[in-house]
Every structure is written in structure tokens, then in C-alpha cells.
């Protein structure tokens, strides 16, 4: 018994439970890892393309999401020893021996039975876990496979898309000749990209930027024909404010554009507008701003199509400019009266009326037998006849002999009750009959 009263047992139990908890945490994190990786990849893609934020590394965020989410979920589920003990009992079917032992330990119960329970839980932790093989959850395995497949496909698509973008950027614009940007052109590209970032910071979303681009007229940029033919669209889309009017007078020009070499020396401001529009119609434009415009146009087209698909409500009142309410929808509410009415319903059962069957009222829902008819065929039994005697006639007097009545009337004898008189007459009659008998 002294063995039970040792701290060694408690320490041993805590150590084993801790080991089980670590194992559970790792398994839970591993179980959630594929989803977390997918989520991280989605976050990275979002940060790279949809919501690019300069000061956040997409890769870093992806890694953080992929690692932190499983860990957080695992600790949320198996953060306490009680949860781990309960999970052990559930998986090993050990009849809450481990959970009970943990609770006994937590409550510092040091009776013999309590320490025996701790030893029992400790043994269950050891033997049950040894008996069971490693958990192989097929669902987890399947999920991992699916996620790995999705990730692989996404990677392949990303690689292919990257190649396609490179080829598209380096595609020959004229006659199959690949144009390499020289120093001046690279400066312009840098300026355009900085301008794009400035736009994005200003408008927060690509849609706003595109809207501003669409609102403003394409500016006249003084460049030579060759450069205009190559890069005009990038300049025109990245221009922030209109700088020229139709007469060719230059307005406020952004500082970046003013600093571009070659633009200042150009004197064909009036022609460049037409030239740029002509070039837009014929040449491919490799800038992302154009793609944004195209996306926006595509989305607008889709929304228009979806608007077209929506069924229009036929409402005669709409001819008056929707000034009248929708009278067609004002159907009368369903009546709930049970009386007979004229209409579509059956009048026999009290549920007639224009709106068909009504809600039943007070139906005997608890009757365990099949419904009985309300009426019974046949005639009623006559029953017992009862008369209430409220106004009874006076009772008939018993007939008495006239001699007796006369005697009473003269007052010779005391009045005798009718029953006594009857008794006397009866007695006399009997005596008379006896005398007659032989």
C-alpha cells in the first residue's frame, strides 16, 4: 500500500499523459497541414496578384499561415490534459480510466482507492497504447493526397503561366523581331511601373484605378514614332491627369512624365493622340494595366449579360413608371373560418370557400383508433321517462263510509284517520266472512 502513496506514480502518470498530448498535438497539426498549406498558397496568390502589398512578403505570409493555423487548431483542441485524457479514453475505449485518474490527480485525492485509480490510469495509458497500432486514418490520408494533388497541379499551372507570361512579354510586335529594351526604354518602363504603384496606392483597388483611367482622356505624349509605336499604351494608361486639350496645349503634366527624356523634345503633341488610338487598335499591349482594363471590361460584359438573363416581372403598373403598387400580388389571405361558403372547397365538410381546405380546429390528435363518424344511424332509444313534479294536483282522498263521515260531522266521536277507518272496515269484513263460513 505504501507504493501507492508515492509521488513517483503521479509524476509517471503526468509524464505519460504529456507524451500522449504531444503526440496528439503533432497528429492534429499534421492532419490540418494540407488545408493550411492550401490556405497559405491561396493567401500568397492573393497577396501577389489581387491585393499586392509592398511591405508584406507573400511567401512569408504563406509559410506563417501554413504553420500557425494547424498549431493553433491543435492547441485549441488538445491544449489541456483533460482533453487529451478524454481523447485517449475515447480512442482506446478504456472506460474513462485515464480521465478519472487525471481528475483524481488534479483534486489531490490521496486515499488508497484514489492512488489505485491513478495507477490504473497509468497502466491503461501504457498498455492500451501499446496494444493499439499507430492510427491510420484513411480519411486523413485521402485528404492529404487530394491536397498534395491540388498543390502539384497549382504549381504546374503556375510554372506554365510564368513561361507564357515571359513569352508574351517578349513576343515580337512587328515582323517577328524581338525588341530588347535599351537603356532609355528601360527607364521609361521603370517610370511606368512606379506610376502604376502610385496609382494603386492612390485608389486602393484596381477597379478604381481603371475607372480613373477610363475617365481621363488619353494624353498626348511627345515621343517619336518608333517609341510611340512600342510603348504608347503604357504611357497613356499610366497617365494620371489630362495634360493636353484638343488644341495641343499642354496642361499640368506629372513630374515623372516631364522628366522622361525624349518627351520634352517631341513636338508632335497634336498627332500623338490619334496615333496612339490607332496603335491601340492594332498592336498587342504587354502591360498589366491593359489587362486590368480588359478584365474590367470583361466583368462589365458579364454583369450586363447576367442582367439580361434576369427575368423581368410582368407588371402592368410598371407602365406608369412604377408609381402604382403591385396590385397583382395582393391576393386575399387564406380564410380560417369553418363555416360553409361558396367556392371551390367541399361545402359538405364545413370547409368550403374560395381558398380550399381550411385549417382544422380542435381535431382529436390523440385518438388511438381510426376516426369514427360524427353521426350514428338509427333511431334514438326511448329511454326512461322522468316527470318533474312541480305542480302536482291535490291527492285524491280515500273514500270512506258515509256513516263514518256523518258520525265525524256530528262530533260524536273523534275523527279517525282514513287508514284506521280502512283497517276497521277490513277487520269487520273479515269477521263477517268468518261468520258466514260453516
Amino acid at each position: 500500500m505504501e507504493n501507492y502513496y508515492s509521488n513517483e506514480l503521479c509524476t509517471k502518470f503526468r509524464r505519460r499523459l504529456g507524451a500522449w498530448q504531444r503526440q496528439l498535438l503533432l497528429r492534429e497539426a499534421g492532419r490540418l497541414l494540407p488545408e493550411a498549406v492550401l490556405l497559405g498558397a491561396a493567401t500568397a496568390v492573393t497577396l501577389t496578384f489581387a491585393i499586392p502589398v509592398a511591405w508584406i512578403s507573400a511567401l512569408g505570409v504563406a509559410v506563417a499561415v501554413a504553420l500557425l493555423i494547424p498549431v493553433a487548431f491543435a492547441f485549441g483542441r488538445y491544449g489541456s490534459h483533460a482533453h487529451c485524457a478524454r481523447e485517449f479514453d475515447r480512442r482506446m475505449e478504456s472506460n474513462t480510466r485515464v480521465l478519472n485518474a487525471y481528475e483524481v490527480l488534479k483534486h489531490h485525492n490521496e486515499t488508497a482507492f484514489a492512488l489505485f485509480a491513478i495507477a490504473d490510469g497509468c497502466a491503461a495509458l501504457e498498455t492500451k497504447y501499446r496494444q493499439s497500432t499507430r492510427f491510420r486514418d484513411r480519411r486523413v490520408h485521402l485528404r492529404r493526397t487530394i491536397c498534395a494533388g491540388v498543390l502539384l497541379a497549382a504549381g504546374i499551372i503556375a510554372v506554365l503561366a510564368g513561361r507564357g507570361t515571359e513569352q508574351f512579354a517578349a513576343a515580337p510586335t512587328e515582323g517577328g523581331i524581338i525588341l530588347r529594351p535599351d537603356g532609355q526604354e528601360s527607364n521609361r518602363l521603370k517610370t511606368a511601373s512606379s506610376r502604376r504603384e502610385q496609382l494603386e496606392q492612390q485608389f486602393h483597388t484596381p477597379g478604381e484605378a481603371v475607372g480613373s483611367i477610363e475617365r481621363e482622356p488619353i494624353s498626348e505624349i511627345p515621343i517619336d514614332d518608333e517609341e510611340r509605336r512600342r510603348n504608347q499604351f503604357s504611357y497613356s494608361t499610366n497617365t494620371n491627369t489630362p495634360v493636353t486639350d484638343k488644341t495641343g496645349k499642354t496642361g499640368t503634366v506629372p513630374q515623372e512624365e516631364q522628366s522622361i527624356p525624349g518627351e520634352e523634345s517631341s513636338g508632335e503633341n497634336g498627332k500623338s493622340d490619334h496615333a496612339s488610338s490607332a496603335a491601340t487598335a492594332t498592336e498587342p499591349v504587354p502591360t498589366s494595366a491593359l489587362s486590368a482594363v480588359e478584365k474590367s471590361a470583361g466583368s462589365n460584359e458579364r454583369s450586363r449579360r447576367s442582367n439580361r438573363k434576369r427575368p423581368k416581372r410582368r407588371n402592368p403598373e410598371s407602365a406608369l413608371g412604377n408609381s402604382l403598387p403591385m396590385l397583382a400580388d395582393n391576393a386575399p389571405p387564406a380564410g380560417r373560418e369553418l363555416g360553409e361558403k361558396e367556392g371551390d372547397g367541399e361545402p359538405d365538410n364545413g370547409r368550403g370557400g374560395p381558398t380550399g381546405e381550411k385549417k382544422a380546429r380542435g381535431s382529436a390528435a390523440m385518438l388511438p383508433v381510426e376516426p369514427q363518424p360524427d353521426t350514428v344511424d338509427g333511431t334514438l332509444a326511448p329511454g326512461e321517462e322522468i316527470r318533474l313534479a312541480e305542480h302536482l294536483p291535490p291527492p285524491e282522498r280515500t273514500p270512506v263510509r258515509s256513516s263514518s263521515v256523518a258520525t265525524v260531522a256530528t262530533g260524536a266521536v273523534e275523527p279517525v284517520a282514513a287508514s284506521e277507518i280502512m283497517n276497521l272496515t277490513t277487520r269487520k269484513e273479515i269477521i263477517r266472512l268468518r261468520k258466514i263460513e260453516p
Partner: protein
Amino acid sequence: MNMNTNTDTNLQTLPPSEAAGEFAARFEALRAELNHVFVGHDELLELLLSALIADGHVLLEGVPGLGKTLLARSLAGCLSLQFSRIQFTPDLMPMDLIGGQQLFENGANSVILKFVPGPLHANFILADEINRATPKTQSALLEAMQEHQITAGRETFVLPQPFFVIATQNPIEQEGTYPLPEAELDRFMVKLLLQYPREEEYDRILDLTTTGKHVEVHPVCTGEELLQMRTVAQTVLLEESVKRCAVHLVMATQPESPYATAECRKYIRFGAGPRALQNLVRLAKVRALRQGRTIVGEEDLRWAFLPVVRHRILLGFEAQNDAMDADAVLKEILSKIRV
């Protein structure tokens, strides 16, 4: 004769492991002795003996000819206790059970009024066909079963310990019977349903009963040993999570409670109460100790739940309509409530 050899051993002074072992040994001795005459039904025997040790009363229900009375008599034979059999009949009166005052001669020309105890004043009561007596007579058992005492006139008599009532009734025969009132049903710790034997058990039943052999049971447990077993079983621990589970299980049978399941709300009119919870835990403690544990586990509660609660719930009309009996409803509840 398989007499118990550990009569002198006091379970309360033993270390937990030895106490649990000794407890299980006595339990198995009782079961083995019963198996000499009563074939099969291991689960029922375990529940019956557990209820006996847990200080509860047993209601045995089964169709005629399954051996209810034989089981009760055999159990009485296994115990060295004062046994009393009461055959409940419609003309039985409460005084026939609890006893009454009688005149006795006290010397020369003088009499004395003296209380003569009825058959209820015993350790082991077999109330055979209990539902054949009128409710007036059945109610004579109420005080005895719950408080282990009998009040007759102005006197109260404490019943001997251990006091155990095992009652039998037939579920299919309703002619001339009186269903037990709820108050009395609630006083039975468990209601055990005696089912038909399995195929292989019929052979042994035939061998035992039709070959002229006379098999008897012998007492293997005294009243003192039984009380020791009760005391040790009561010291089995019940920790917080399992206690919560027991409370939730019982509350789940009450349609108004927050733990009531959809089946409970639909089918049950009145659920089990605190006495069901007490009996549930006491029975689970016996099982835990019999299996060598000193703390009640969830499975012990689940094992005891059906026999303890099945006669304490009152089903509504919807249950009849959907052909749901108490066990089916309780199994639905069991599947939803976990630690």
C-alpha cells in the same frame, strides 16, 4: 458444498487491489452457485447480484415458465439469510404482510395484546406475482422497501439488515392483475427482463430438470459478508466528469430539461428522478469494483442505465404509436450523451 473460505476476511481493511480481488471472488462464487440451477442469462445474473450488493430491490419480469421464481428462490438459497416468500393474491391484505396485534394468554385468566410480525420481517423477501395483489396490499411494501422499517399501529419496527426484496411479475397477463403504482416501481433499483434461453441452454435445462437429478444450491455468502461488500462498494470513487455524465443521462430522460433529446421530448411524458440517479451510481460502483477498478467509469453508467431507468419513465401516446418501448427510447438517449 462450496462454502466461502474467506469468511473472516474483512474487505474494508484490505488494500484496494486485494479488496477488489476479494470482492470479485465473492461475486463470482455467488454467480457460480446460482448457475448450478439457473442456466444462462449471465448478464441478468450479474445485474441481479449487483443490485443485491448495491442495496437495491429487484423487479423480475418475464413470461410464464422462464424461471423467475426459481431464480429468486435459488438466490435466497445462496445466501445465509432469513428468507420469506409471499405469494401475492388478490385477497391478500396489508396486515398479512406486516403483521398485526393478537391476543395471547398471559398467565391465569389474563390476556395480553401482542404484535405478531408478518412475513415482511425477514432479510430476503420473494414477492411472487406481485401484481396480483391489490394496490392497497402493494402499498404495504412502500415503507419497508425505502426506509427498511415497518410501522404497525403505534409501533415502528426496524427491519433486519440486509433487507432485499425481489418481486416477480408477468407482463402479458393482465386479467385480474393490478399494475404497480409509480411510487412502488420507483423503489425497485432495477427492473430485469427475463428473456428466453438460447438454444444451447435448453439442453442443460432439460438435463437438470427432467432426469430426476435433484440439484440444490448452498449458501456461499452470509449476511455479514454481504454487508461488507456493500460497504466497500460504496467507497468506490466517482469523479467529476463521470458524475456529470450520470446527471446528464438522468436529466436527458426529463422532457423539460435542457439535456432532453428529441426522442425524449417526443416520447417521454415523465422522466426519471433523483432516486434513479442514486441507484444508477450505486449499481455502477458495484460493477467497477467487480471489474477491479476503484473508480466508476462511463461504461459502468451506461451498463446500468437501462435496467435502472426503464421502469421509471412514463411514455406518451406517441411512443405507442411509433412502437417505441422504454428501452428503445433510452438507447437513443444513451447514444447521444457522452462524457
